């Protein structure tokens, strides 16, 4: 129904603080774009700029090809689900959902049919006469979604909509949102700080840091080829193991002086990284060639059922390894971590991906 | 000592006055407690509450210091209660709690209430018992009879006394070719018109609140020998009722109103930005009627180079002038105090009666001496010969214009404060053209009589002494 295009969008507050420092994103029609990043990275501000709740200091925001910088939130034809749901406490569920339609002068019977059909989809039909305070957290969340859906807008905006729910409900709602979005086919922008939510929901994932976009792409592409050490450590749980390199006479060494034994993929490489699942753990002293071999000492073991995490000291830092099933290692065990060269990621001094 | 205050508190009401009076009584009570514990050989302390404030309160304080310095047996502790109303209210509250002062200053119209209170120790009896010989005939008769019982007993001591005078601007009168103050109201009317024609914006200023009942109604009635109430203005019984709607006063109000409508009289009050005395002193208005007590204020604050003087209040042509009424307050000694405090109180009253004290008092305030001896002493000292005190002897002349008649000796009506308030209300209604002069005064009498009726019912089977 609509595309959303951001071109070098900036937000500078009157205090001089730059919250968003120039962001360009093109979101195709019907896709779900997730903005992810740590708190304070500007993702919520960016969302509010798209919503029209914050002015745009420079750059442009276009919805459906039309620049909306000077268009008020009501006229942008978008709907937003707020973190705290922002349900009108004095209105019944029905009126909460109908309010936006009434303001737009929709005929009464059309409002009624749309509210009731939306309520049906969201399984809210029995709750239409209740007030928000009589609903559970999950139900309120649905009402908030319903209020957005019933308007049939061009774009949905979600501002951390699941953060107030417990873990189980969150997983459930995540799937529901994804399905709903796909069924309705409405272009959506979703803000979260939870990388799991980001990975599972996104068609397009935007990783933000300090007001800037670090990387845009399909979630798995980003996972497999993080554009920076920041992305590498933000996406994935546990995060990628990162080891700083120092240039020695006989090639790069790790912080504790261990030589890596082969040439990095790029001469500018200053950090190497590997995912916890991308290395093998072995007690075997023999090392395969062309692989990074790190002597490691197990410090802690976290079994989570299907897999276990080994927290080890290696190369002068703490790394985490993921092993399937029950781990044989015990704290204090000496072992080797073997990562094949093609599974290694290389980053330069500024943290940018190289090689 | 807070018990009666709680009683007096109209429940649920958080009005300022209650807090204010509560604090005052509380402070007074605390003071009382402090005073109850004197050191062994210290002089006997007793309380004196008075209702003057500002400069006048400072003069009273000095008076008290002088008394304390004049002897070593007694020490008077003088406390201002702010104004006359508050002094009476606080004294009543304190009396009901048994924490009353020994001596209290009560204003002229509170006399009837005091006489029926049963809360006083007769002043003449006190003086006699303590061996002081006071020559009561020494008091100016107009003053003495105001406070005396119908049998002539002095239940309280006249203290600060004044009477009303006409203040007139000599420069303005010179403009219309006059060098003397007008003697009659007819003359006043013509003079005001002439001043108006000569370009004066405000020939005369009056105010018409409760306070001006004194000069407009009470003094006028006395000088013209017109009753304010039946039964000799209340001296002869609690069943006295108002009479002012049938006397010459009606004509007077009619004239004032006529002059006001013609722009010859302006209303001046503090609420409106400038009171009468300020209006006169600044040269804005040329004639005012006010107390001799304001003589000092006008003398100190009048416009540079302004020539002014005071004269007796005018009368209507053909009227035989009678004495004007005394205004001010007297000192009452309250019952229920120990004998040694009464000795102190007697010494204090004797000190105040002394002509030298009269000179001090009149020099520092605008009040007139209350006794002939005091007046003579001051005259012999040349007090009245030159500015700023010259002119104040007019007040004595006014007070002694005649031997007091049944009507001109004073007013003895219960809750007269409320009647004065009613006077203000009706005058305002008359001047705002809400009612006619006669209707307004009829209502004043009707409402005033209801107040008197209520007072009489409150004291069944009692008669004024």
């Amino acid at each position: 129904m609509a595309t959303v295009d951001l071109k070098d969008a900036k937000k500078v507050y009157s205090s001089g603080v730059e919250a968003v420092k120039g962001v360009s994103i093109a979101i195709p029609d019907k896709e779900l774009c997730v903005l992810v990043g740590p708190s304070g990275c500007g993702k919520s501000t960016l969302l509010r700029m798209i919503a029209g709740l914050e002015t745009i200091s420079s750059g442009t925001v276009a919805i459906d090809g039309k620049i909306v910088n000077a268009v008020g939130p009501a006229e942008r034809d978008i709907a937003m689900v707020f973190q705290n749901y922002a349900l009108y406490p004095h209105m019944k569920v029905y009126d909460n959902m109908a309010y936006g339609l009434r303001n737009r002068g929709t005929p009464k019977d059309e409002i009624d049919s749309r509210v009731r059909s939306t309520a049906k989809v969201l399984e809210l039909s029995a709750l239409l006469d209740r007030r928000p305070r009589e609903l559970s957290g999950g139900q309120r969340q649905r009402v908030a979604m319903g209020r957005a859906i019933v308007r049939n807008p061009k774009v949905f905006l979600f501002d951390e909509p699941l953060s107030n729910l417990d873990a189980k409900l969150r997983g459930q709602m995540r799937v529901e949102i994804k399905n709903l979005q796909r069924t309705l086919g409405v272009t959506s922008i979703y803000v979260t700080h939870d990388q799991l939510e980001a990975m599972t929901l996104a068609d397009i994932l935007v990783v933000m840091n300090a007001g800037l976009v670090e990387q845009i792409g399909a979630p798995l592409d980003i996972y497999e080829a993080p554009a920076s050490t920041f992305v590498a450590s933000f996406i994935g749980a546990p995060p990628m193991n990162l080891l700083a390199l120092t240039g020695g006479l006989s090639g790069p060494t790790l912080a504790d002086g261990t030589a890596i034994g082969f040439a990095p993929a790029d001469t500018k490489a200053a950090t190497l990284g590997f995912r916890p699942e991308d290395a093998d753990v072995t007690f075997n002293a023999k090392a395969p060639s062309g692989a990074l071999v790190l002597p490691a000492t197990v410090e802690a073991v976290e079994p989570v059922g299907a897999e276990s995490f080994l927290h080890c000291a290696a190369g002068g830092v703490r790394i985490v390894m993921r092993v399937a099933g029950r781990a044989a290692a015990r704290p204090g065990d000496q072992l080797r971590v073997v990562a094949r060269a093609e599974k290694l990621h290389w980053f330069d001094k500024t943290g940018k991906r190289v090689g | 000592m807070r018990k009666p205050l709680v009683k007096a508190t109209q429940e649920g009401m958080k009005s300022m006055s209650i807090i204010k009076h509560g604090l005052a009584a509380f402070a007074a009570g605390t003071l009382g407690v402090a005073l109850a514990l004197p050191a062994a050989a210290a002089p006997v302390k007793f309380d004196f509450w008075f209702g003057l404030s500002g400069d006048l309160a400072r003069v009273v304080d000095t008076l008290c210091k002088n008394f304390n310095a004049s002897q070593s047996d007694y020490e008077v502790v003088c406390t201002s209660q702010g104004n006359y109303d508050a002094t009476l209210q606080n004294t009543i509250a304190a009396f009901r709690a048994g924490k009353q002062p020994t001596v209290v200053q009560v204003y002229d119209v509170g006399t009837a209430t005091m006489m029926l209170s049963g809360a006083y120790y007769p002043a003449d009896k006190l003086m006699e018992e303590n061996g002081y010989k006071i020559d009561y005939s020494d008091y100016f008769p107009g003053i003495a009879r105001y406070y005396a019982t119908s049998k002539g007993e002095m239940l309280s001591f006249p203290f600060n006394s004044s009477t009303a005078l006409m203040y007139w601007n000599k420069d303005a009168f010179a403009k219309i070719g006059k060098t003397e103050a007008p003697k009659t109201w007819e003359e006043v009317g013509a003079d005001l018109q002439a001043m108006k024609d000569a370009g004066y914006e405000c020939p005369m200023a009056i105010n018409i609140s409760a306070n001006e009942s004194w000069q407009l109604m009470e003094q006028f009635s006395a000088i013209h020998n017109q009753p304010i109430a039946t039964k000799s203005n209340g001296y002869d019984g609690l069943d006295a009722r108002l009479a002012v709607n049938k006397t010459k006063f009606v004509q007077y109000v009619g004239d004032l109103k006529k002059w006001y409508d013609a722009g010859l009289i302006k209303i001046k009050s503090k609420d409106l930005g400038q009171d009468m005395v300020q209006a006169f002193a600044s040269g804005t208005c040329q004639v005012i009627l006010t107390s001799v007590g304001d003589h000092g204020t006008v003398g100190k604050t009048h416009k540079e180079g302004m020539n002014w003087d005071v004269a007796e209040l005018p009368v209507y042509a053909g009227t035989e002038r009678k004495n004007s009424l005394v205004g001010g307050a007297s000192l009452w000694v309250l019952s229920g105090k120990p004998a040694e405090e009464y000795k102190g109180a007697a010494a204090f009253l004797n000190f105040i009666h002394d002509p030298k004290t009269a000179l001090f008092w009149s020099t520092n305030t605008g009040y007139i001496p209350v006794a002939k001896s005091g007046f003579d002493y001051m005259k012999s000292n040349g007090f009245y010969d030159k500015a700023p005190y010259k002119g104040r002897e007019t007040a004595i002349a006014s007070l002694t214009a005649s031997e007091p008649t049944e009507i001109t000796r004073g007013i003895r009506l219960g809750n007269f404060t409320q009647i004065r308030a009613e006077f203000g209300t009706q005058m305002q209604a008359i001047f705002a053209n809400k009612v006619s002069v006669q209707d307004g005064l009829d209502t004043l009498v009707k409402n005033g009589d209801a107040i008197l009726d209520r007072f009489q019912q409150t004291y069944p089977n009692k008669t004024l002494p």
Partner: protein
Amino acid sequence: MEKRVTFSRWTVGILFAVPQMLLIFTFFYWPAGQAVYWSLTLQQPWGGGNIWVGLDNFRSILASADYWNSITASLAFAAISTGLAMVIALVLAALTDRQLAGSRFYRVVLIWPYGIAAPALALAFRFILAPEAGFMAVVNRAWPGFWDPGLDGADAMASIIAAFSWKYVGYNFIFFLAAFQAIPRSLIEASAMDGAGVVRRFRDIQFPLITPTIFFLLVINITESFQDSFGIVDIMTSGGPANATNLMVYKIYSDGFKGLDYSGAAAQSIILMMLIVVLTIFQFRFIERRVHYR
């Protein structure tokens, strides 16, 4: 582990309640009882004695045209000053909440008036509204005789209403602003995205959500207009001219303390108390129904 303290014996609970009960008894029920007793008797001010007169005090008050005038004036004063104080405060608070230009200025300045004692405030207003020397003198110069609170009852009433409203605008403003600010910002934003303009947002979202505050202030303002008006009347008009501003509380004071008619004043205060009780019950019965508590 959380420890829960429970009282096994009710006597302990009573013991804790006693100080409060004593206070309420000493400062409310006992004086209220005294006032009822006084209103049924004729009290001699100096305490010399009293006479039982039954309902005579009430009869004479209710038969007095002055008293009915006082009730009318009080009701008019309550209605107009409460209306003014609340509407102005509501508008100012709404503007401040919207962060319009100058809002910081309002916020600071409007908190001051409530801190000023009524008599001091009244003195200031007396000066400001003095027809010859004050601010209104300018108006009077243009239209002579336009403003005359000394003789014109309506002008005097307007003066005390202005002073009282001014004081309570600040008080109401603080509560209104707090109420507005307690509304989550996201609600306003949600309604903005729901297509509601400023006026509609105020009507549909903000106004209903601050109804508890509006109701609270309505009760307080009306009650205070019957009580806190005393200092203002005392300084500005003394009940005049011609009783035009002789509000019930001032009449109680002047009859009771100045006129020493304790019994009549007690009867009036009983009537005033009942009037306030009735008004408050009315407000709770009929207005509170429209209040949305969150």
